[in-house]
């Protein structure tokens, strides 16, 4: 098979859309929610345990792909820093008329500051847009994984998945 996560490290559109953790375009426009980009049968289920609303189901065996129920998700984002694969993101299509807010886990230094304009990158690490930093969360419970929320053009909400690393001081 050409393309796809096993050859490129990037989940393909087909892989993502076939995954039960990936909300439909229809659901996405209704409210903020998480997007689970977990496409391989790894034995792992912390996302299921931490969700206070039962919006994520893995079940048995724990290699099953997480099933996401958008209607139950209140976008609290607790699963984002916990996922050992950093495969969960937050997407808010309702953020503004022309912008969406995207949240992603980030484990590099230096961290950006709220209000900074950083470069949004896609799953291949390519810069696709400027992105204004809306929030940088790093409470103790996240165990050193920061969650950064940026505003991006709406049509890039399902493309931007991180930011270009900032140069070390």
């Amino acid at each position: 098979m050409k393309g796809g996560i096993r050859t490129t490290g990037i989940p393909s559109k087909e892989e993502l859309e076939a995954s039960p953790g990936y909300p439909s375009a229809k659901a996405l426009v209704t409210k903020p929610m998480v997007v689970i980009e977990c496409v391989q049968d790894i034995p792992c289920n912390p996302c299921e345990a931490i969700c206070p609303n039962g919006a994520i189901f893995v079940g048995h065996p724990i290699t099953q792909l997480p099933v996401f129920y958008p209607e139950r998700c209140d976008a609290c984002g607790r699963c984002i820093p916990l996922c050992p694969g950093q495969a969960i993101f937050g997407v808010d299509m309702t953020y503004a008329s022309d912008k969406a807010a995207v949240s992603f886990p980030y484990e590099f230094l230096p961290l950006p500051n709220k209000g900074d304009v950083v470069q949004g990158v896609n799953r291949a690490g390519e810069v696709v847009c400027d992105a204004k930093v809306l929030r940088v969360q790093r409470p103790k419970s996240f165990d050193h994984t920061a969650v950064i929320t940026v505003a991006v053009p709406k049509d890039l909400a399902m493309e931007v998945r991180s930011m270009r690393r900032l140069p070390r001081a």
Partner: protein
Amino acid sequence: MRIEDHPILGKAEWGRKITLIVDGEPIEAFEGEPIAAALIAAGHRVFHYTTKRNEPRGVFCALGRCTDCVMTVDGQINVRTCVTPARDGMVVKTQIGLGQWEDLQVCGEKEE
């Protein structure tokens, strides 16, 4: 280079600052860290030259198994620097080939 700050591990907590004499030059180290770590942090790459081909070798396994990082330390040859803790004033030399014993005191042969 030292990694002072780290996104996961936080700010480094170094031990007591000490000095190693490496090929006659002082370099800064922290007490108890492996000699090899201090050398790598100081940008030192060649730890010994091989016996037959006189080729440079440096840290390869960093676990005390491969013996590529051996140097002459306080006169003792073939010291695996990746698992030997640094102590203040240690005299460390890039080992040439099999090296040469320099100070028999460390072998316990010197009579008091």
